[in-house]
């Protein structure tokens, strides 16, 4: 069975946020609803300052705590290893947001993070929380999978572009924008990455590019101690990716 996963090469990533923009456009996200974000970290004090960054989609954990805590099974894991939200079952309790160690879930019935509030500029029709002119085509939206513009009062997150990857030819090892046969099925953030720092494929297929990269370049996962087992791997030259906590600054 396919187990979709992503590899992000931190030695190539320039922190340009093209992935973030592409994700927001592809999935019609509101400002502040960063399904994909590049997190920047500052360490030290002037003049000895170090800046590092980390692109962060949902980790689509193998053992997702968000799925375990969801009282209605609105959050669930598909057979091909993707964690999705059924907006018809979500009650908006936000326990999944509390229980996600990676902070990748969003509840957009909150104060706007930019002015004007785009929900007022483009008011939602029917069940949509807003209605931007550049929204995802209706036939791709699927509220049972958390794809498209959400209704009010539910939680949203990265879907691994499920509307694309679920239509990929069966048994394919990699979804690569450079391969015309798989380009259309490749997640938006992977497809636009200028230095090609992102790879997407089947983690269960030993011949896939993602499996090979993880093996050859010693891919690591974030916060292994939580037991969530992310399906997003980072390549950091063999070292663990640096995600400094506040305390590392305090004590440095």
């Amino acid at each position: 069975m396919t187990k979709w996963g992503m590899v992000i090469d931190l030695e190539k990533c320039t922190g340009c946020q093209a992935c973030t923009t592409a994700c927001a456009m592809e999935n019609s996200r509101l400002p502040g609803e960063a399904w994909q974000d590049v997190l920047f970290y500052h360490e030290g004090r002037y003049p000895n300052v170090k800046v590092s960054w980390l692109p962060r989609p949902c980790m689509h954990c193998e053992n997702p705590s968000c799925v375990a805590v969801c009282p209605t099974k609105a959050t669930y894991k598909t057979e091909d290893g993707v964690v999705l939200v059924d907006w018809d079952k979500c009650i908006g309790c936000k326990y999944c947001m509390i229980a996600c160690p990676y902070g990748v879930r969003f509840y957009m019935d909150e104060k706007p993070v930019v002015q004007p509030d785009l929900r007022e500029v483009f008011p939602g029709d029917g069940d949509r929380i807003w209605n931007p002119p550049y929204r995802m085509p209706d036939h791709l939206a699927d509220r049972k999978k958390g794809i498209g513009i959400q209704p009010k009062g539910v939680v949203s997150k990265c879907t691994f572009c499920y509307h694309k990857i679920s239509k990929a030819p069966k048994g394919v090892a990699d979804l690569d924008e450079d391969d015309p046969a798989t380009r259309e099925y490749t997640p938006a953030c992977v497809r636009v990455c200028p230095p090609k720092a992102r790879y997407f494929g089947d983690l269960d297929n030993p011949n896939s590019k993602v499996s090979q990269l993880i093996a050859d370049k010693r891919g690591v996962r974030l916060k292994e101690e939580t037991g969530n087992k992310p399906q997003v791997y980072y390549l950091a030259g063999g070292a663990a990716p640096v995600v400094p906590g506040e305390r590392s600054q305090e004590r440095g």
Partner: protein
Amino acid sequence: MATVTSLRPQFKASPYLIGAGILFIVTFIYAVYLKVTLGYAAFNTTNYGVFWGFPIVVYDYFLLTSVGLALVAAVPLALGVRALDPIAKRCVWLAIAALVGGVAILFMELAHPLRALWATPLNLQTASPLFWKILCVGAYTIVLVLTALALARGARPGEVPRPLAILLGLLALAIAAIAGSVYGMLVFRPFWYGGELPVVFIIESVMGGLAFVIFFTYVAYGMAPDTVPQGTRELLAGPLGVALAVAVLLHLLFTLARTVTGLWSYGEGMQVWQYTVSQPLYWLGLIGGGVVPLVVFATPTLRTQPWLQIVGGFLVAVGLLASRYEFLINGQLVPPFKGSWAPSLLEYAPSQFEWVLFFMGVFLANTIYAGLESWSSTRQE
């Protein structure tokens, strides 16, 4: 001793009931108005990390107080300790009032409360503490109402079916423990994580239950201690007062142990303890809601003073709310995994709407309690 006539329900609207009812209606209308006019700005929660705000604090507070009262009621009803008969009915009335107040706030906060009613039992997510909490609260509500009906029909505490009373106690115990697990299971949130939390929540529930029943017994008698029957007064000054002192002591020990360990710990996320102890709210909970009432209820000459009991009970109730706030909100102040986009410590203060919800819940609970007191014959114990 109650007579057959005095046990018959007789409704008499007291000024307390009318006042609480009017205040509830006013706050409810104002809450609806604010929600409609403020829209998305009604809540002060954000996507940076404070996902559960003041309404959830108050909901948990009311729910835990309700189960604490049910646990106190279970002592005479299920365990047959007849000495506590005089307060059994009041505990059940208060448990209903606190439950309704808390659930009303939750329903105003939750986006899809009605969906929760069917989606939770039908999907059987047994891995989620919240699933069990919702399920147990549903069952608890039914059992509590059945117990109340038995008492309202004139049954003396000893006549309430024992299996029903045992079930009430067990469900109350389960809810308090599961409510603790909701936070205690989260290993990557070290401020919350810990297997002791279910026990702490049970102790704090009982503490809230005892404080409420002591305080509201005087409320039921119009804050005129002289009119409280001698037997009930002795109960409050004796076993109940001592039990409250023990519960407060255990709560203080847990709080101090968590604080000192937290301050010594250097793990990521534990820096919130430094912030916590710098806040007046923490000291209000610790001193006002802990040390002072402990002195009152642990000192024989002080706990026999009705007015000190009233003040002590009130202080415990307020202190517990402060502790609940500090526990729930501060546990979210270190934003997980947000990089330099978020400050190292988030800020949160309840919005106007969130405050109005709190008062709405308080007045609703008081209305329900006053209504039940007026309707029943509790005063003739």
